[in-house]
């Protein structure tokens, strides 16, 4: 793992453990970036970059997915699990 994404990984891991803070991703991302020391040149990518651009920073794929979901930019369409689970 490169040093670059370590701060991003720490930030996303925090959000995994503290789901009540995920609203900050949309509402106050700069506060999160400051809290975890995310490098300046990574911030714009996190806010506006594509899946592949975020991945290119060295961010773990599972964390890319989580970040994009919390940012309102999911890579896969949402669906109702009940479509399947109601017919088990």
């Amino acid at each position, binding site marked *: *793992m490169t040093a670059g994404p370590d701060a991003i*990984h720490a930030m996303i*891991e925090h959000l*995994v453990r503290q789901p009540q803070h995920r609203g900050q991703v949309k509402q106050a991302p700069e506060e999160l970036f400051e809290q975890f020391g995310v490098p300046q040149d990574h911030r714009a990518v996190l806010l506006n970059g594509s*899946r*592949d651009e*975020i*991945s290119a920073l060295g*961010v*773990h*794929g*599972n*964390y*890319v*997915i*989580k970040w*994009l979901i919390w940012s309102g930019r999911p*890579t*896969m*369409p*949402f*669906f*109702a*699990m*009940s*479509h*399947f*689970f109601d*017919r*088990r």
Partner: protein
Amino acid sequence: MGQLVGAFAMSHQLGAPDGVEDQAERVFAGMKQIGARIRALAPDVIVVVTSDHLNNFSLGDPAPFAIGTAEQFTPLGDMGLPQDPIPGCADFAQALLAFATEQGISMAKADPVLPDHGVMIPLGIVDPQRRIPAVPLYVNTVFYPDPSPADCRALGAVVRRFIEQTELPAARVVLLAAGGLSHWVGMAGEGTVNEAWDRAFLEDIAQARVDHMAGRDSADILAVAGNGGLEIAAWITVAGAVPDMAGECLFYEAIPEWATGMAGVEWKPLT
């Protein structure tokens, strides 16, 4: 003495049915078929061999192998999955952990753990009533390059020996591998399915080519089947537990819209 009464594998994903309705139904029917077969075996415990998705583990503290030892688990509820508790099998899990450690396997205790979809999609379909005790056995492929396919095969062999020597009352055991096949998660290539690679792996399962599976290289898997393709480690673990069995493929669908190949297998004794 314990008894391994069944060994199965299935993908641990589901996706939006829109535009792939027929494939989605075939996959779901196959998953339910596996569930019916497992329930018919009346197991005392289902060992779900799967990978977590960094919902319970940390990149800073890698745990390629880990086991949930709780009496009961509350699912994470990711992907909108139900969070009703599921029964664990603490005595079995703790004894397996101790046995594996004695056998030289480095295995962490995952406690507390909130099983994510890697456990709960397959288990939720296999046991909708949440009555059968389950033990999540994590083969965490998110900590690439570990564990290697060879390590997974060795783990499977240890699990089999444990089952056959245990005197615990939870004696009838089903192994259920969950994960795979080819898919790229959160990286370039997401939405690609390498159907030829998927089918070649399923043929390895069908022909009981455990040596070949265990001889695969994680870097090669990553290159041609994606980071999610590494989840075949769970299947290799179960294959390592049943080298005397061959896998019958119950369903396979390449579904790029779900960003993965979807399959289900039941292992049966070699004839």
